[in-house]
């Protein structure tokens, strides 16, 4: 069995969290998902701060980031990660409700690895999330040193 790495899901909407996990269930990927509610928590997780002080070491295999979130939004998280030498190699996939040109542009400028619009149709949504999970958590070779 491949040693699966964690998927960090940053999503403020519990429904979306549930649906995303549902989608990842099929490949047993759901067990490796850590879901946090906003950007601040995501950064705490990544930097072993606060309640994540004692979490298991290691960067997640991929970060699934919603854009619109309270406190610190997805784009800010992306920016913070890319500026942090310890975190900047983590693959980041934006998983967001709509395709807004300025958001898309900004994300790619910041070096996002993928930008995925959550389809309204649930089957499509499941399919999309599954593909992301398979690709980033199973197939992608993570950068050395993690």
């Amino acid at each position, binding site marked *: 069995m491949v040693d699966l790495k964690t998927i960090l899901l940053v999503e403020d909407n519990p*429904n979306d969290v549930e*649906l995303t996990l549902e989608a990842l269930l099929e490949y047993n990927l759901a067990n490796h998902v850590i879901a946090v509610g906003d950007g601040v928590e995501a950064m705490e997780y990544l930097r072993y701060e606060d309640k994540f002080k004692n979490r298991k070491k290691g960067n997640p295999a991929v970060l699934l980031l919603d854009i619109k979130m309270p406190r610190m939004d997805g784009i800010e998280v992306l920016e913070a990660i890319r500026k942090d030498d310890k975190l900047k190699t983590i693959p980041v996939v934006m998983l*967001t409700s709509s395709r*807004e040109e300025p958001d898309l542009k900004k994300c790619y400028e910041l070096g996002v690895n993928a930008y995925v619009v959550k389809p309204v149709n649930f089957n499509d949504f499941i399919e999309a999330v599954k593909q992301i999970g398979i690709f980033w958590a199973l197939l992608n070779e993570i950068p050395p040193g993690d």
Partner: protein
Amino acid sequence: MILVQLLYNLTVLISLSLLSGFIDNRFDRNKLIGKISQGVLFGLTVIVGMMHPFVYSEGVIFDGRSILISLCTLFFGPISGGIAALMGIVYRISFGGDGIFTGLLVIISVYLVGFYFHNKKKQSRKILTTNSELYLFGLFVHVVVLIIFVTLPYKIMLETLKTISFTFIVVYPIASLLVGKILIDQEKTRNIINELKESEQHFRNFFDSALVGLFRSRISDGMLIEINSIGAAMLGYTPEEMIGKVRGLDLYSNPNQRNKLLELIKIEGKVDNFEVELVNKKGITLNIAISIKAYPDRDYFEGASIDISSLKHAQKEIKEKQYLLSKAQEIGNIGTWEIDLLENKIKWTDENYRIFGVEIGTQMNYELFLKLVYPNDIDYVNKQWLAAVEGKPYDIEHRILADGKIKWVREKADLTFDQNGKVTRAIGFTQDITKRKDNEVELSRQKALFEAIFNCIPDAIVYTNVDREIIGVNLAFTSIFGFSFEDLMGKKTSYLYESLEEYEHQGKTRFNLTATEQALPYEVKYRKKDGSIFPGETLGTSIKSGDDSIIGFIGIIRDITERKQADEKLKESEYRFRKLYEDGAIGMVMVGKDFKFLMANRTFCQMVGYPEQELQQLTFVDITHPDDKAKDIPHVKKMMIGEIDVYRTEKRFLNKDGQTYWAQLTLSPFYDLNGQFIYNLGIIFNITERKKLEIERQKFFMLAESSSEFIGMCDLEMNPLYVNPAGQRMVGLPDMEAACRVKVQDYYFSEDQQFIADDFFPRVLRDGHGDVEIRLRHFQTGEAIWMYYYLFSVQDDSGTPIGWATVSRDITERRRAEVALRKSEQEFRDLAESMPQIVWATRADGWNIYFNQQWVAYTGMNLEESYGHGWDKPFHPDDQQRARDAWQNAVNNKGIYSIEARLRRFDGEYRWWLVRGVPQLNEQGEILKWFGTCTDIDEMKQAETEIQKLNAELELKVEQRTEQLEASNKELEAFSYSVSHDLRAPLRHINGYVDLLNAQFKDELPVKAHHYLKTISGASSQMGILIDELLQYSRTGRKEVRKTLLDMDALLKEVLEELKTVSKGRKITLDIKELPAVLGDYNLLKLVWANLLDNAIKYTRYQQTAQISVAYKEEAKDIVFCVRDNGVGFDMKYVHKLFGVFQRLHSQAEFEGTGIGLANVQRIIHKHLGRVWAEAEPGKGAKFYFSLPKIERN
């Protein structure tokens, strides 16, 4: 019993034989030890035999002794036989008995018989070798023995003979034969062995001392088994170094050669004299010839080798030498030949063939050679050769015919004589001497020619050796001097001179070894035989041999007595002529073909200032004035070819100082007898002075003629003598004649005539000159010509007046301008005064010289105050500096001065004025004056201020509005952003959970619940679509149009490709025209086409065959595109709703849709500054139009 004994004897014999062989092998029977050994052996055997004899009676015994002793002696010689016999005798004596005597006799006799035959055998080995001979020998021995038995006592004798005769005659010879045979065989074997040994020794000696290399090597591994010292030395080794250590096959330097050799051996079993290259111990390659024979059954090669390296080298050297010889012969044109007189064969070298033109290799003999000799020379050559054979030397030159060409050859031979003094062979050479011969012939021809010339020359010619002794004279010499050649033989040239002094002076100084080559003739006085003296023009030179050394002298003497006399006369007349020529008043020159001065007399030289020598370096052209060259040269050239006889001209020369020199030149050409031009004789008169005067006069004349002033002259009767062309023109007269026909008075108007005739002219005559402004009358038009009339009196040399002259100027224009100026000045003033503006004028420096009344009226300043530098006084203090700067700027740029400034009114109020000034420039672009105006702009200025204020307010408002608009735009963006995120999320959730419900609890839910879930899911999907389209609509509104040049055809194609999924399964006829390119936003226009075509496909859904067409038409400024379908159409009543957001003309059930598409289309087209509209009828299809601006051509 006898037989047993016999057998016993025989056995002993055979054993003996074998033992004898055994000994013989170890001890050479030719040596003493061998002989003794054999003797002892045989002796012992005899004793053994005698110990067991065949005893006939007491004392009478028979045994094999006769056989043994005879054979021993026969085969091993007297010594061995003697020993054996002696031993037998001793033993027999010890034995005693009756037969002792006979026994001893037998021994002795057989010994003697053996000895006898032994000697015979020594002489010839062939004796006693065959069986029968051996047998007869045995028989003979035993017959002898039987005869000896006679010596026995009679009784015994008879008995014995009776008993043993048979044995002795039959058995013993056979036994002898048998034993002898064995011994012979042994002997033979031994001989063979000895011979073998001997031959081996010979072979070994030969092998070691052979002069060729010999060797043997194994076939299987190539190893050398044997090699003699020569063979080894050949390769730089000793045999010990090679045998068993060197493989013969490794010695070959060239493997191909080795392989070839091996192959030959394989096929032939041997090779003979095969040349190979072997490498010696030092690694040097040698040429070796080897012969090899193979013995495959014995596994070896045997071979012999000879070092032929030096041979090869020598061969090569010989070849090279032969080549060199042949080359040398070729180069020297020398061939060699050899004749064998006995066989009549001639051998030629290649060059010999070449000389004779015979193909190389052709077999030659004497007859063939003769055939090649030039026919006229054959007899000569043959005779010479026959003489040579008789012993005369053979060295001849004759001609041959080689390839049809006549060649000269020299042949020389060396003959070889036998003991009888007969010639057997000869070796000789042939040399091609054609060239030399040709030269000789040419030389003799030239010599003859020279002699003929020598004697034909009318001048006396004498030539001498280096000591000036006369060697030869020509015919002319003898006739001139009167000496015959015999008279002069051995005489020196001094003999010919008038006196010894003359010789010393002339001859000796010129005809000597150091004299340089003398070319110029000189005059010498000679004495003839009759003693008379004559002058001889002498030309002499030394004669030089090929190496440049002087070998003699030659002198050519011409009798010039007559010429001298003629010269004297000529000199005299020439002197006279020369005097005339040199010092006459006329310049004279001789000019040659190339215009060179051949001669120039002193007068001419003085004229042009060049000495004659210098002049001779120049040409006629050089000293001709440049302006006259064009005229002179063609004429002179014509004279040279005889077209003109004489050329006379007045021309200018340039003298040495560069001064022009006028001369009259007369040139006449001189020709030789053939009419060829030789030179021009030129005669030159000095006309400079005359020309100067002429030119002066001409100058004045020209001045008057070309002057634009009226210049005229009249006599005292006032008859015009001269009126210049300008004067004629002024008064309208055609020429001088006409001008002189009228009286001076007639040039004036009648009212002025009296003044002129009675007052002005007499006054001028009195005062010398005078002037007046007066009109002349134009003779044609009667117009008045105002003149500044200057008149002066003309006097002759003595001071007596002879008439008047005038130089007058037409001043009509000036007078006209003065009038006009006055008029225009007045007009300007009138205009300036009538203008509502202030008008002013200043000098260039700003000094005011004019103001109109308006200035006075406004400023309240009077003109005196205003003129001068006070112009800036009325300016508002705040504007004064600005006004001065603007002024300075205008002055600097010579441009317009313009300023708006406040001027003080008389009552102290300031009003705004526009002050403008224009500079008046002269032809040099300098400012003469300024003219300007001041215009009251006060009201305009106030209005402007008002407008500015209003504009400022307006801008402020616009700014505020823009800010508001931007704010609302931002709000809208934020709104749609929220909508896209926040409205979509719940929809997704609804969908998600419905699906989860379906997936996980499908079976537990009632049918109706399924229906509800489906409805929920459908509704949420529809809402999702609505949101997406609404968002797109909103984005379209916000989006900036990025225009590029678009290929509409390509764009449409793309759209149709994307719509394929929609039109799947439908029967659609597309009619799409080729479309023009437009400027537009790619993505937006793509959306337009997608919406319109999607609609067309959608609304034709219920037609059997959908017909959709796309076309366009060009209008003045736009291109109108049209999408037409045959679908359900719509009622034009509702057309106004068509492009509204969320407006639909069909129900969702009929045709699905959101009502956003066409709204989007409209928005995009409007953003492209186009229009969009539709035409339709229910059930009859629809037409959607949109227009886009045409691309502007530039």
